[in-house]
């Protein structure tokens, strides 16, 4: 029973440490418009018997996945001054580096960049005077996705 309790306990995560690290990683010029936190631990129960995990008689769960996998997504805009697109893209890329340092073992990905610029540099644009349809506002935000073990 205690083995099962350990398995259940290991499959639960406290979101506070993760959110604290994220909070400190985000500077004041970043304004979040959405934040999502997903913990995927459903595979843990089927991987191995908990008693085997406790007595370490077998390697039950792949290394780094003992407590499941966490996915954090957030969308943000930049505030405080009107930056051009180039600087916004640079700011997002510097944030990516900062997050990679603060979340070791995480895969930090820019899911959506400012101005719809892709990480490989691909983008679409129009030269000259263009007329934007009424009611359509170009989205000025970037979205990050981070996946890794719970902190």
């Amino acid at each position, binding site marked *: 029973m205690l*083995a099962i309790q350990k398995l259940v306990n290991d499959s639960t995560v406290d*979101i*506070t440490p993760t959110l604290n690290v994220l909070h400190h990683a985000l500077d004041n010029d970043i304004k979040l418009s959405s*934040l999502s936190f997903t*913990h995927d631990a459903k595979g843990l129960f089927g991987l191995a*018997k908990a008693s085997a995990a406790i007595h370490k008689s077998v390697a039950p769960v792949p290394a780094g996945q003992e407590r499941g996998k966490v996915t954090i997504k957030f969308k943000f805009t930049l505030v405080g001054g009107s930056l051009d697109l180039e600087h916004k893209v640079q700011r997002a890329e510097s944030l990516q580096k900062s997050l990679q340092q603060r979340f070791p073992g995480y895969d930090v990905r820019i899911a959506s960049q400012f101005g719809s610029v892709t990480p490989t540099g691909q983008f679409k644009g129009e030269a000259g005077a263009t007329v934007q349809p009424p009611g359509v506002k170009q989205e000025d935000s970037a979205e990050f996705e981070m996946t890794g073990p719970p902190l």
Partner: protein
Amino acid sequence: MIKLIGFRRTVLLACLMALNLSVLGIYFLSIGPMLDNVTSQRDSVNGQITELRTKINGIKQDMVYEKDNLPKYNELKDNGFFQNQDRFTISRAMEDLRVKAGIASFSYAVGDVAEIPNEDAKAVNYKLINSRIKVDKIVSPLDSNIYLLAQDMASVLPHYVRIQDMNIRRSAEVNEAALKDIAEGKPANFVNADLEFDWITMVPKPDAGPAGPGDVPAGFRRQ
């Protein structure tokens, strides 16, 4: 030979030889087998002693394990890990949670009780059960209240509550009109959020045989 040593001495020698032969006979035919029997019995007893010693050591280890883990088991029991999941507990917990997190209101939905397949639980005739709890329509001025809600959920329900999913979206900007509404005491909501939790407990497997509709106590959900 009789002429040399005499008849009487010859008879005496014959008697002594007969006595020796009878002693040898007694030894080989009676004492020898008895000794072999005793030796094998002694070996058998030694084997039993070794077996019992192993068992005693095993029991000692079990007692140490039990002594170490009994408080943990009792703690789990006190924390409700072996408790059934009933709707009244959830209702009370949600109200406690709302007050603790400082949220005006929210909606929640609880899914059917589902069994998590687990061989260890099956081996002790128990099963792991899970209820998915979805929380949405949160009326909260700040996202910090939502983080509090996510954090406190684990303490208001019996062990174990696992956060599965949390989505927070900014729904309105903080502007002059919003601040004026707050000053006038109107409910303010700048964020929308939905959260999903799993409530996991471990309960004894019911006895074989289908249960009728009347077998479920009031407030309890079929598990």
